[in-house]
């Protein structure tokens, strides 16, 4: 009877669950293509044959050829392994760091908390793409640079979520009651903290992966990310853009793949601001 006069309008949890399933399916399909495609049709993403430039599909290249006569099918498959792999590595690193530091900040409080929060706030104020660009300029190797830069950008969100959730849980009567009953920190972690943090982390991981893939593609598109001839989603688009009139499908291939992958991840992340 709480709020009897103001009832109704509860959040519909089913829509979220449905969105997650659809999103996971989309992500699986795109990643599955990246992994399985080269096994189904043998081929190579780098071999050029200029006579076939912008040519239509054939048995060796089911999606046709790009402006240098390379198989789009194999380039796309390569691209769909590359950015997700970097994104996954960055999310894993950032997630671990964020969980650890967020938990530390919540449990210890005091100056540890204040210092970590200050670092996170400073990173929050700077555009992620800019930080990634700076790290790319420092690190040798583009893939390594992306991993390091994206990890640096992404851990902040995991940190903030872990810290906020942990603080709320640790201050709750439920934890107090468990402590009064003589349960130790391990029990509090397993039965109180982790069940609250895990779903939040899953959401943040999907969102973080989307952010990472967007960043890699965006920097590829403006020619400061992955270098040619590496097949990368954004780079493929900018390479094929001048041939839009002659070969619209060639440009649409990476566009559709990128959108499907990102849509899947956003659906998995669900309704979240930013």
């Amino acid at each position: 009877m709480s709020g009897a006069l103001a009832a109704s309008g509860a959040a519909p949890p089913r829509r979220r669950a449905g969105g997650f399933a659809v999103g996971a399916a989309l992500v699986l399909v795109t990643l599955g293509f990246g992994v399985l495609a080269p096994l189904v049709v043998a081929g190579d993403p780098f071999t050029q044959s200029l006579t076939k430039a912008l040519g239509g599909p054939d048995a060796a290249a089911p999606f046709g050829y790009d402006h240098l006569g390379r198989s789009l099918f194999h380039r796309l498959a390569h691209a769909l392994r590359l950015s997700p792999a970097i994104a996954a590595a960055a999310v894993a690193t950032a997630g671990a760091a964020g969980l650890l530091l967020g938990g530390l900040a919540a449990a210890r409080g005091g100056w540890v908390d204040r210092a970590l929060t200050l670092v996170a706030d400073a990173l929050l104020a700077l555009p992620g793409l800019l930080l990634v660009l700076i790290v790319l300029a420092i690190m040798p190797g583009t893939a390594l640079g992306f991993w390091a830069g994206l990890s640096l950008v992404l851990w902040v969100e995991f940190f903030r979520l872990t810290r906020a959730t942990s603080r709320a849980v640790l201050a709750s009567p439920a934890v107090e009651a468990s402590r009064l009953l003589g349960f130790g920190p391990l029990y509090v972690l397993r039965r109180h903290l982790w069940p609250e943090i895990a779903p939040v982390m899953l959401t943040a991981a999907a969102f973080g992966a989307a952010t990472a893939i967007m960043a890699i593609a965006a920097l590829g598109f403006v020619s400061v990310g992955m270098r040619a001839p590496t097949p990368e989603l954004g780079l493929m688009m900018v390479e094929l853009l001048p041939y839009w009139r002659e070969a619209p499908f060639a440009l649409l291939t990476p566009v559709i793949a990128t959108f499907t992958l990102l849509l899947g991840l956003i659906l998995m992340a669900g309704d979240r601001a930013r």
Partner: protein
Amino acid sequence: MTLLQADDVAVFDASGRALVHPVSLRLDAGAPLVVLGETGSGKSLLAQALMGTLPPELWARGRVRIAEAEHDAAQPQGFRRLWGRAVAVLPQEPWLSLDPLMRARAQVAEAHALVRGLAPVAARRAAAADLAALGLGDEAGRRYPHELSGGMAQRVAFAAARAGGARIVVADEPTKGLDAARRDEVARLLTRALETGGGLLAITHDLALAQLLGGRLIVMREGAVVESGPLAEIFAAPQADYTQKLLDADPARWPRRARRAAGPSVVEGRRLTVSRGGRALVEGLDLTLRAGEIVGVSGPSGCGKSSLGDALLGLHAPACGAVRRIEGVARTAFQKLYQDPVSAFPRRRALGATLADVARRFGRRRAEVEALLARLDLAPALLARRPEQVSGGELQRLALLRVMLAEPRFLFADEPTSRLDPITQRGVIDLIATLAEEGCSVLLVSHDAALLDRTADWRMALGGHGTAEAAGRAAPAVALGAAG
């Protein structure tokens, strides 16, 4: 004069199941009508059907006559223009019902301006007059809701609800979570509505409020009327068994708990000073809590009742003084019951799993847990559910069961029944009393003076600092009063 008449009003859910069976009632000018019932009795749904405010997934049937016009309960949109103009609806929790971003007087004035059509200046003047009549000056009118005390917010909401000129006042659970003093204040406020020939429909589970209001009474249970008639007559000689049970659940009617010889000291506080946020709430308190004894603690909210209990449990470090607990007893023998049991269990874990953890921790066998379930009148099926899926009374008893697995020697019960219905409340308090009889020392916090009077061996009133605290040095906050 009849202000409101309802004929055969019934409420159904989407599947067509009746939640409220047909009820007819009449509200006369100058005479309150009280609908009394517990959670789930359908009393609020009935009120919502009469005002056209049912949630969209429910629907109603029947005829309602308000202000000389007939309305069909099945067509809730027709009621809307009555709000503020014919019917004033008082909110359950006024401090949540005022716009947090608007000053108090503006929230009253807007009803004068937009509903009655007064010019802005006249509306402001009318609002100021309304508030002044309720003892709220200009300064209070300029405050934002978060700067108002609970009682002030209640009065602002009362003025705002009635500013549109409505003669009928509908109040749904107006005393939810209030202590006795505040409850009396609300009762006085509500009776004001009657002075000028208005009508009052009060929906409540609060027996004391019902008694203060008087008038006519309807008792509801499981969507049906159990009994109706003049309130004084029903309170004096109820006809239905259920009404009798409900009345008996009023702490004022409880038999006084038999005093027993107290055992040895379990927890002691010596020159204890407890503070929160740098403010001393309890200063220089000496107290001894003995085995088998229930000590009642009362006092206004924020006076340090909870902090004192937490200090005795060792959850909150006292600013000064010492807490001594009986030696040779495990720390887990010092336990706590929470006001909101839902927040005291892991949110996403089945209750049975949590209890199994505790049983294992204390080496209790499954059969012992089952025996306790039976003793606390809890269905084993509840164990498969999560905390928010069981009723407040059941969950509080499960919390008690969890505490009992730890074989407590001291229990701090922090308003354990303030969110429960009267009959359920009595059951939980009885169980706590049994625990005391078995030798546990209990510190029971409640805002219900009658409850403490009937239950506690002795009582302690913690006083608020009032205005003295602003001056710096506070007077001793504790008035030790042996009662009983």
